[in-house]
């Protein structure tokens, strides 16, 4: 039965378009999605999922389970980077380990959206608060990643170099304190990041405008699957290019990029089952939040906060390995495990 779900997922249009994109890279086709469009699809998906979640929330009650789910999300966002860091540290430098670890603490919105699409297809309900949960999980990992980095690089006396990089950028003059990290900037960047803002904003707008708001949005929302397919076509192109540019310890990264999400997913499932007691739909979304890794916001934030980390290491793992793994196998697999456990 497991296989059947996975196959059904693979044979859904968005996933097939993902493969089409990857195939086009393999055969060196000139298929190309203009950058402005890819940005539009991202904005649309965030806006739509936020609005939908807000509308959903406006029709439901704030239960203790919801609150504890949100809390559990925050905890996972802080916990994952820590154990990911120690795993990575066996092969990589402090900087790279901290940067990669941070991406796994955060989430990938499109992986989440794919899971929502999966649930919608099989008509499994889920709560609007899970969208809020996603928004909550976007940023804490950035902070944790930086803290990990500061803590361990101080230990290893490499901190000085970082200071120098930051010092160079600010033209030699360092602001009051002497730490390299400008926490002010980092925090505001993390929490007022464009996608977090749009997601939370749409959530609130969907919540506030309730049913009449939703009605005016419905035919916009109807494009959801089509645009997701388009987006995954583009992501297939990008992910295939990323996987080709994998460097360093490729085998280790391949294992890490698939086993880490799997492990995080299992932790997530166990939390849902034995601590939170969520519904099946919410459990899948919680799991996918734990399992997914950020390949846009966190690497960009890390580039600013930990300049010595090599983004050519971070992005290929998160986008080239973990993203396809989750979207193709992860979602149906986690769902299979959940339905087995919940019975």
């Amino acid at each position, binding site marked *: 039965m497991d296989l059947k779900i996975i196959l059904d997922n693979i044979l859904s249009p968005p996933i097939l378009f993902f493969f089409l994109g990857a195939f086009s890279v393999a055969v060196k086709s000139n298929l190309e999605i203009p*950058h402005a469009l*890819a940005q539009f699809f991202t904005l649309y998906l965030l806006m739509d999922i936020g609005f939908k979640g807000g509308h959903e929330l406006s029709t439901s009650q704030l239960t203790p389970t919801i609150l504890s789910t949100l809390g559990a999300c925050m905890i996972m966002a802080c916990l994952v980077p820590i154990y990911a860091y120690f795993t990575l540290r066996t092969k990589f430098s402090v900087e790279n380990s901290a940067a990669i670890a941070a991406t796994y603490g955060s989430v990938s919105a499109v992986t989440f959206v794919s899971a929502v699409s999966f649930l919608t297809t099989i008509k499994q309900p889920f709560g609007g608060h899970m969208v809020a949960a996603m928004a909550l999980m976007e940023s804490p990992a950035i902070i944790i990643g930086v803290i990990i980095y500061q803590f361990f690089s101080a230990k290893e006396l490499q901190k000085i170099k970082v200071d*120098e*990089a930051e*010092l*160079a*950028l*600010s*033209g*030699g003059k360092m602001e009051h304190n002497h730490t390299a990290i400008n926490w002010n900037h980092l925090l505001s960047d993390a929490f007022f990041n464009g996608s977090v803002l749009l997601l939370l904003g749409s959530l609130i707008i969907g919540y506030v405008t309730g049913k009449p708001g939703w009605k005016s949005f419905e035919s916009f929302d109807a494009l959801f699957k089509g645009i997701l397919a388009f987006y995954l076509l*583009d*992501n297939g192109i*990008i992910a295939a*290019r*990323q996987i080709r*540019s994998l460097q360093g310890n490729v085998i280790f990264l391949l294992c890490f990029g698939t086993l880490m999400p799997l492990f995080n997913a299992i932790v997530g499932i166990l939390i849902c089952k034995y601590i939170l007691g969520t519904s099946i739909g919410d459990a899948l979304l919680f799991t996918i939040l734990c399992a997914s890794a950020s*390949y*846009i916001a966190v*690497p*960009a934030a*890390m*580039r*600013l906060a930990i*300049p*010595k980390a090599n*983004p*050519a290491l*971070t*992005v290929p793992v998160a*986008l080239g390995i973990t993203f396809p793994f989750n979207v193709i196998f992860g979602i149906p697999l986690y769902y299979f495990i959940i339905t087995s456990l919940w019975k």
Partner: protein
Amino acid sequence: MIKSKKVEIIVESVKVNKIVYQLEEIGVPGFTIVGNISGKGSTGVLDHARKAKVFEHTYLFIVCDEEHAQAIVEYMRGVLKYFSGSCFVSDVLLLRSEKA
């Protein structure tokens, strides 16, 4: 026409805000930013992963006098020690225009 320097900079897009801020601190008379570039340098091909913002670079240039150019170069020398990019300087004659 005033003998001037044209300083051209290619640098990681995520760092551009800070650099622009510093250019203003240095007191350059102006600058022009050309977005949407791709390229290749010591750190490899750059348009591989446009979705990943970290790989984006930006091209900007400043026309200014010798001293400012010197200051920018000194500044960029520090920056390029740690960040990906390129910087080079050439001679230009700037049209001195007085507003009517």
